[in-house]
């Protein structure tokens, strides 16, 4: 079955998604998925009480990045849960959502059918009274001793200090590790010679001073948050790839780069 062989109901929810948006003073927020995999869903709930005094979902909204079925399942789960008691809503499964949509292509059953999980996460978030996620803006200190391959590639694509000649990095794909404001400023400077600058930070949000954060947001610098550099990989004495750990998903993946800049190296 082709990934786009969707039921009419899926297509309807994709074309006219219900309950799109955010709730500013939400009682619970659920965030699931990972942009690396291509699906990310955020669900916001507002909790009220019905005549019997049971807690119900008074209002629910969503935002989704992903394929057609990711959008449709999010829309459907909000429609199903609206007005339901929390207990009932908590029992909604992925299968229920798929059935309400007259089925999903088999390949989409797992990857893009996260809406029920997002709803559960939102209810959990409300019940545990956990603070809505707070932005962490400080960078975690870099521990270069844990990065494999640094010594092997120094002078062959790995820079431990700011290179004197920027032209050496022209048109290169560069990974720069967040090591405080100096590294952030240099990341911005690099965009003058290449359009592939990736900033890696273990922080949950964009690091740096308010001014630098604004500049970074508007720049071409790509920022990978909640991530650690594990290894620098290459053949023929040249950096080719880096192995990155996504702390949020607890997953490793590779990224193709030409140069790695580690300013705070103390290995």
């Amino acid at each position, binding site marked *: 079955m082709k*990934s*786009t062989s*969707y039921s009419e109901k899926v*297509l309807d929810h*994709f*074309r006219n*998604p219900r309950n*799109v948006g955010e709730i500013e003073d939400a009682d619970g927020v659920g*965030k699931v998925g990972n*942009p*690396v*995999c*291509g*699906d*990310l*869903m*955020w669900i916001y709930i507002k909790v009220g009480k019905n005549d019997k005094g049971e807690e119900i979902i008074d209002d629910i909204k969503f*935002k*989704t*990045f*992903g*394929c*057609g079925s*990711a*959008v449709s399942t999010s829309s459907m789960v909000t429609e199903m849960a609206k007005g339901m008691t929390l207990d009932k809503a908590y029992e909604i499964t992925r299968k229920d959502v798929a059935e309400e949509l007259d089925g999903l292509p088999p*390949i989409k059953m797992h*990857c*893009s059918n996260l809406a029920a999980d997002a709803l559960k996460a939102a209810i959990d978030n409300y019940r545990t009274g956990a603070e809505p996620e707070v932005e962490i803006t400080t960078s975690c200190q870099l521990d270069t001793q844990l990065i494999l391959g640094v010594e092997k590639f120094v002078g062959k694509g790995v820079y431990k200090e700011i290179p004197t000649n920027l032209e050496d990095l022209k*048109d*290169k*794909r560069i990974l720069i590790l967040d090591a405080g404001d100096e590294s952030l400023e240099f990341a911005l400077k690099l965009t003058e010679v*290449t*359009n*592939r600058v*990736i900033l890696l930070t273990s922080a949950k949000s964009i690091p740096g001073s308010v001014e630098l954060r604004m500049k970074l*947001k508007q720049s071409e610098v*790509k920022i*990978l948050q909640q991530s650690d550099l594990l290894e620098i990989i290459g053949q*023929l004495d*040249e950096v*080719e790839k880096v192995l990155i750990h996504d702390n949020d998903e607890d997953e490793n*993946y590779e*990224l*193709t*780069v*030409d140069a790695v800049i580690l300013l705070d190296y103390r290995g």
Partner: protein
Amino acid sequence: MSVYLDYQAAKPVDERVVKEMLPYFNKDFANPASLHGHGDVATEILSQSRKKVADFINAPDAEDILFTSGATESNNMALIGSALKNKRKGDHIIISEIEHISILNIGKYLEQQGFAVSRVPVDQYGIIKLDILKKLITDKTTLISISTASNEVGSLQPIKEIAQIANEKKILFHTDAVASEAVIPIDVQKIPIDLITFSSNDIYGPRGVGALYLKKGVRINPIMIGGGQEKGMRSGSENITGIVGFAKAAEIMKSVINEEASSLKKLRDKLISGVLETIPKSHLNGHPEKRLPNNAHFRFDYIEGESLILSLRDENVSGATGSACSSKTLEASHTLLAMGLLHEEAHGSLLFSLGRFTKESDIDRAIGVLPGVVKRLRKLSPLTPPEFLKEYK
């Protein structure tokens, strides 16, 4: 109005080609192997067709053309056939990281069979790194296979230089020319290429037929064994109807290729500037100049490609994406990742490929609907920064 901008995936068969093919379904249907008069007619048309395809690439001898069932088979013949033939000389083959999936998978297959396969990396524009290619060559290397252009992002590869390197080192050089054959002429007497893969459909001929150009003196093992057709290199009764169509398509293509490429380039440039100017946070993937004249490959921040294609479908506009969500394996495009794009960037990619029947009104329509579609999806996406949305006109 329906707009088709996915010529890289499939092309319509030219009306003139269809007309040329018709008599060979039921009138002149005989097998060229037969000794009777009907068979002679088939032998004659087969030889004329071979000449036309040879002329298309200026091959000195029509016998250098072997007909196959298409590009995938030609690639299998070239890689597996030469690997087997040269096994005693060496067991090392070089391909690139951005080859068509058929070459990549043949590479994996050869590795399973005990061969060593190296993959040349590419730069951020998707162009192979020549210096690394040179360093990868060993005295065990028997074949280099690099396509003329990326079938995804359209980056043109330095074929002339690769041919030179291979020639100097006495290594066979194969190129898959499918992505470029309708827009960039190939002259095998100017560039020393040993093996070239062609597809009929990619020059507006019928599907299910293709060719492998095999330079005089180059030896490979056959991989299709049987009745010994195509000089024993590719057994199986000749697909005369398809071959006649392929030959007609090649003949037409040769006469219009330069003119067609330059008008497609104008349309493509209009599409690229139209999209980049009207959609904020949109980017062109691949090289700005060194790209196929009919290829426009974009990426849009904060959104995912399959939902983009679905939305465009509702507007009757057809394109393609490198997003994992649209593939069978749920893996993002290997080409975009090899260029150093992040997974989420690869997800937001969109390929528009133009062809012979693309009209300016098609381009206008695509430029017209795309901004609205992108904006709607960005409004749905949690990745879109609120301050960006606020100023999003």
